């Protein structure tokens, strides 16, 4: 009797959640930061998710700082340093994350930012930008921009093949500011698309593509047909060398 009584109420709550998920998981669908207003890096995380949500620094030597030596515009950028992960099981990360955003299926997300990658050492599978969802069970499924053999590609944290540049790959320049733009139409069917520009050159143009994850048996559960976080910096350095990267003038928004 008691189970029946509460079972009805629990079912009603679940149904309301399901029907009104866009209100329940609401959040901003745009964010701009030129990093000019910060004196110290801790100020990036002031307030209740008003600016950035948190930083990931997986090794003790990894760091994040406000840089006044290199900048794309104004007088400042953010400097990310990540050690070589060497024999560790986990990737070396130094990144900033903004959570509790809301990019829904059917919308087109645009990300525009500037990167300065220091040095000429090889950087294979260096991840630079993530667009992810927080699933209840699962490893933040989403889309990532990676540098592999000195060229950008798109990798997915759900079953979907990588998208490489077709033909001759455009080399990723070092020791200079590089503009990256992504445009992603969100779809859980093969009705989405991904476009990537490097310094205004269209290097990836993939249509009829599944751009959102779905639940997968019991390995990935609680996906909602949305993305809720963006991550910039060295979001994962899996191989090779220590990395120093600068990021400036980031803008994420939904295109009208």
């Amino acid at each position, binding site marked *: 009797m008691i189970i029946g009584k509460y079972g009805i109420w629990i079912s009603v709550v679940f149904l309301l*959640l399901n029907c009104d998920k866009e209100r329940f998981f609401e959040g901003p669908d745009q964010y701009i930061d030129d990093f000019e207003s910060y004196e110290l890096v801790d100020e990036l995380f002031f307030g209740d998710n008003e600016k950035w949500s948190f930083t990931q620094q997986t090794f003790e030597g990894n760091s994040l700082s406000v840089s006044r030596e290199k900048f794309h515009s104004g007088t400042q950028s953010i400097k990310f340093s990540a050690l070589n992960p060497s024999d560790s099981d986990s990737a070396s990360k130094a990144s900033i994350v903004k959570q509790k955003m809301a990019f829904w299926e059917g919308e087109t997300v645009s990300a525009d930012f500037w990167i300065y990658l220091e040095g000429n050492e090889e950087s294979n599978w260096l991840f630079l930008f993530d667009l992810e969802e927080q699933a209840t*069970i699962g*490893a933040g499924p989403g889309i990532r921009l990676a540098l592999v053999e000195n060229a950008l590609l798109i990798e997915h944290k759900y079953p979907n093949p990588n998208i490489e540049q077709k033909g001759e790959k455009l080399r990723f320049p070092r020791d200079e500011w590089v503009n990256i733009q992504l445009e992603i139409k969100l779809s859980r069917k093969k009705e989405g698309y991904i476009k990537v520009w490097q310094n205004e050159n269209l290097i990836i143009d993939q249509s009829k593509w599944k751009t959102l994850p779905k*639940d997968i*048996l019991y390995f990935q559960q609680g996906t*909602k047909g949305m993305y809720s976080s963006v991550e910039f910096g060295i979001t994962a350095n899996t191989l090779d060398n220590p990395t120093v990267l600068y990021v400036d003038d980031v803008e994420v928004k939904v295109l009208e």
Partner: protein
Amino acid sequence: MKIFLIAFLFSPIFLPAQKAQYLSFELGGSGGLASINYEKVFSQKENIALYYRTGFSFAPVDQNNGTAFIFPLMLHTKIGKDQHFLDLGLGQSISITSEGNFFIRMPTSLGYRFEPTGKKIYWRFSYTPIVSYLLDFQWEHWGGITFGHKFGI
């Protein structure tokens, strides 16, 4: 906690006498990649039988999420006679990860069940879509093959 749950699912309160009981192994199906299950018929009228099954499975998720321990609870109906049956099932599958996360999906089953005459075994071949409904409605195609063995009467 896990031990208590397993003990509860397989406890003797589910085992009144004089009804057919099975232990089964399902490859794919309601438990994900594979599961072991206890099944018991609790109602039988002419060519229709109702039975429930409780099972256990697990799925390694990743380094951060650990392993998901899965407990499918299903209500089935078996329609037919002699050796051949239509087998329909609906249930809830509770996942609890080693990191403390929790989720429920709804496994369903539409299958053919074969019980060879004079033997204590059965085979079931099923279409077993798993449905998400808590945060979002999703229908995931899946299938399973079950081998069961009767015990008791």
